[in-house]
């Protein structure tokens, strides 16, 4: 075992901690967070990954659609997140790890609906 190997292994904790099962999460910057508020455009409740699309109004009045990726339906169900929880038009504040290339998408970390209820997709990996 040498110093190079030690450095390689040291970095892996960062890279793989939030990797996805279907694809690497390397396109997301897992040391940054982005939080936006807006309204749900569509909840794509699909395998292998779900996408929560959120329309966010910009300062100039234009609207940007952000996509927040999570695991598929079974993991979301285990996290208590159902398709019916995010009907189009639902007010939401959502946080995620953003894309490294600046596109308006992120790895969904947590969300708070307009009524104050919180949703954390990672809770779907808990064994209970």
């Amino acid at each position: 075992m040498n110093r190079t190997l030690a450095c390689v292994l040291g970095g892996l904790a960062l890279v793989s901690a939030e990797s996805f099962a279907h694809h690497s999460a390397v396109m997301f910057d897992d040391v940054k967070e982005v939080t936006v508020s807006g309204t749900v455009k569509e909840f794509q409740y699909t395998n292998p990954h779900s996408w929560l699309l959120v329309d966010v109004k910009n300062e100039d009045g234009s609207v940007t659609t952000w996509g927040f990726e999570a695991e598929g339906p079974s993991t979301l169900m285990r996290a208590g997140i159902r398709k019916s929880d995010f009907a189009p038009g639902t007010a939401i504040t959502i946080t995620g790890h953003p894309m490294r290339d600046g596109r308006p998408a992120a790895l969904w970390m947590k969300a708070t609906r307009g009524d104050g209820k919180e949703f954390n997709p990672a809770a779907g990996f808990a064994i209970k």
Partner: protein
Amino acid sequence: MIHSCVRHVGRIAIGIAIATAVLTASGQPPQPAPPSAEKQRMINLGIEQKTARALYEHFKQEANGGQTLTWRTVPDWTGVWTREATPFFWDPDQGSTDALPTAKLTPEHQRLLLDKLDKVKRGIEFDPLSNCEPAGMPRWLVEPFLKEFVITPQQTLLINEMQNEIRRVYTDGREHPSEADAYPLWEGDSIAFWDGAKLVIHTSQMRAGQYQRVQPFYTEQVETVEVWQRTDDETLTADVWSFDPPALVEPWYTKQVYKRLSNDDKSLRIRHWDCGENQNNTVEQTETGTSDFSNFTFTEKDDQ
């Protein structure tokens, strides 16, 4: 309205910096804990038997040839299950991504593993699963999400939600196909017998692959022996030996643990996976060899 732009998560970065500094200062990454006496006994059993087939025959001899199930003696493995450990460790005893996998690799496969880990550290990572390929055996054993097990007297179906992967395990006394008719299969070819409530499986004819993204590779010569049993209401275990002479200097023994999930409202159901169902999930390998989305449809930028 965007009310909070991108911000750094300082505590994460600091934690990683400290961890890396500790490793670099010592020059040695944390090693997995030495195997327990029981684990060492299982490791030695694989070493003594030399091949997967020999180990399988050893168990079969101990079971006096095994028993044939009837519908009255089928064990109850019903329910929805998932693996207990993180999918990123083949051996749950690895414990940390700062440590190396517990496999004893040949020099060539040690180099292949370190090359892969170095690329991952540099942000170069692409998983063939992104192309909708099955995980295949033996990686099947450690994939996350839901699993179901269907036991009949003649065969047992081991079902993984991910990629709709079903392993057919024959317990009707048949043999593997002849060597002349054998060819690499995603799930391999599995024959088995019952030793009481234990299912003992020999699997061969697997395709080359990787145990997981940050785990070693295996070759088409890999063969496995698994001993499955239900140890309590909520737990299934599988003692697993991987034999793969080009990659492993000795059989890699691990104990895989699966937990039954509470599902009182019956909401957890295995749904079909179709990677092409949502084009926002399309991931491609870039020119640099890493992964990136290719087909967003929810931004105007994609239409340009």
